[in-house]
């Protein structure tokens, strides 16, 4: 009986956390679209959305409403089940990654330590990788089920892009893991807090590779070959309309948010605030959470900044950069890290 009681509270705690994190992710994704339009506008010397509400803050709601009102279309020659599965999968994989991210240190409520992380699995990074690789199915299935050659072409491109860049991303991460010695994201953050400096100091090259690959994984410009508007009409979601299209677009922003969080966690100390020690655990958790968000927002802004600066790569350039540029670079980075760590442990 006693065990059961504790389990219930634990379940409730996790459930609340999941609901909060999902709504935050969705909210952030929503307002990323607004921010993206603002950033784009500013870079192009425009003002951007400013009609719906103050500063155009209601614009995402208006956009969502518009998407809901659109006609739901299933192309006659499409595979209905797969066609529906595509956007669902894209959204699912985008959201799933958030499970292992440590959002802040422990909260202390009513004598209980509440970790602000849905699941501190000891293979956190591996899990992230697994889920991110599944993201390619959303693109692939969507493009395939549309039964449209442009969509299919875009899906093939997207799949090959994600697979190629995953390799370099993984290699960059292995170098980091060599240093941390753990795959758990929670441990990695704690370690950075302990050692007093962030992992970016040790792994600048690794971070750069990771960042470029993250851009590619999120299908962001300059790697948005799978939705190249100008050459493939709209890529894999060309046949989609209404909220199914909304899911795809939304998943892209959720992905961007999550990968920014992961980058902040792995290389920029996560919720750790340097030089400041806050005694009260609840307050520290809150401050850490806000700090993590600030870092994430900065990354998202950089993503957007890049998008509105550089044009899209050509397919061969993309493959060249991935296979002949990033992978060797990641391997060298791995080798150097390994040698340094070896020398370090011997002394």
């Amino acid at each position: 009986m006693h065990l059961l009681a504790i389990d219930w509270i634990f379940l409730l705690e996790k459930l609340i956390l999941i609901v909060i994190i999902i709504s935050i992710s969705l909210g952030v994704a929503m307002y990323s679209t607004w921010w993206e339009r603002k950033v784009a506008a500013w870079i192009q010397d425009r003002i951007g959305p400013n009609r719906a509400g103050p500063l155009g803050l209601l614009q995402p709601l208006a956009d969502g409403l518009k998407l809901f009102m659109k006609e739901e279309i299933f192309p006659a020659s499409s595979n209905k089940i797969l066609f529906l599965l595509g956007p669902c999968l894209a959204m699912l994989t985008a959201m799933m990654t958030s499970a292992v991210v440590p959002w802040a240190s422990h909260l202390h409520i009513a004598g209980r330590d509440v970790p602000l992380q849905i699941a501190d699995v000891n293979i956190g990074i591996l899990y992230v990788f697994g889920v991110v690789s599944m993201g390619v199915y959303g693109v692939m299935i969507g493009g395939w089920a549309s039964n449209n050659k442009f969509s299919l072409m875009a899906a093939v491109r997207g799949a090959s892009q994600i697979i190629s860049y995953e390799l370099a991303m993984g290699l960059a991460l292995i170098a980091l893991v060599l240093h941390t010695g753990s795959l758990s994201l929670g441990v990695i953050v704690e370690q950075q807090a302990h050692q007093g400096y962030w992992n970016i100091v040790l792994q600048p090259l690794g971070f750069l590779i990771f960042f470029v690959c993250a851009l590619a994984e999120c299908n962001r410009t300059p790697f948005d070959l799978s939705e190249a508007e100008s050459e493939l009409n709209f890529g894999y979601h060309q046949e989609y309309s209404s909220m199914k299209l909304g899911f795809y677009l939304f998943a892209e922003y959720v992905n961007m948010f999550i990968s920014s969080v992961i980058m902040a966690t792995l290389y920029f100390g996560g919720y750790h605030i340097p030089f400041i020690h806050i005694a009260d655990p609840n307050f520290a958790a809150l401050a850490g959470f806000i700090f993590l968000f600030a870092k994430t927002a900065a990354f998202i802004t950089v993503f957007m900044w890049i998008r509105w600066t550089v044009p899209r790569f050509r397919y061969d350039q993309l493959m060249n950069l991935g296979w002949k540029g990033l992978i060797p670079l990641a391997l060298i980075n791995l080798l150097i890290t390994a040698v340094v760590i070896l020398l370090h442990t011997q002394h």
Partner: protein
Amino acid sequence: MQSLTNRSKPVERKPMTWVERIYIWNIFKGMLITGKHFLKKKPTIQYPEEKRTFSPVFRGVQVLNRDEEGRERCTACGLCAVACPAEAITMEAAERKPGEENLYREEKYAARYEINMLRCIFCGLCEEACPKDAIYLSETFAPANYQRKGFIYGKNELLIPDPKTQAQELAKARGQL
């Protein structure tokens, strides 16, 4: 071949250097450039709230004039319709009855006078053609409409307010109020 202007520059075709091939530095430079635009003052004019002043020679929607006594000047001669390159003007003439002298200046007047704003190219030739100073191009433009037929402006829309009976409206339309 000799170039027409001396502004043309030969395209550089030398292979990319190592720094260029690695993209990072050049992308960074590009981001600096776009970053500069981030906080620049925007040239946007917030249209409905903020309006740009037209130049004095702006040619907008036509108005049909009245004389000082408030009589319509148009005599339905059709010269404007003939001059119109877009064939936007249609009219029907009628004879002035005794007792209507206070309404129409000439013995013949336009019972119907329509300009199709979707056809009109605002060239101002009607204004030039008119022998009676009856038609002028104003400084406004036709507002949006939901239907095409809403763009066919009749006398109701075109005639200016009567300076005698509707002095207030006229002053307003002229922007004097």
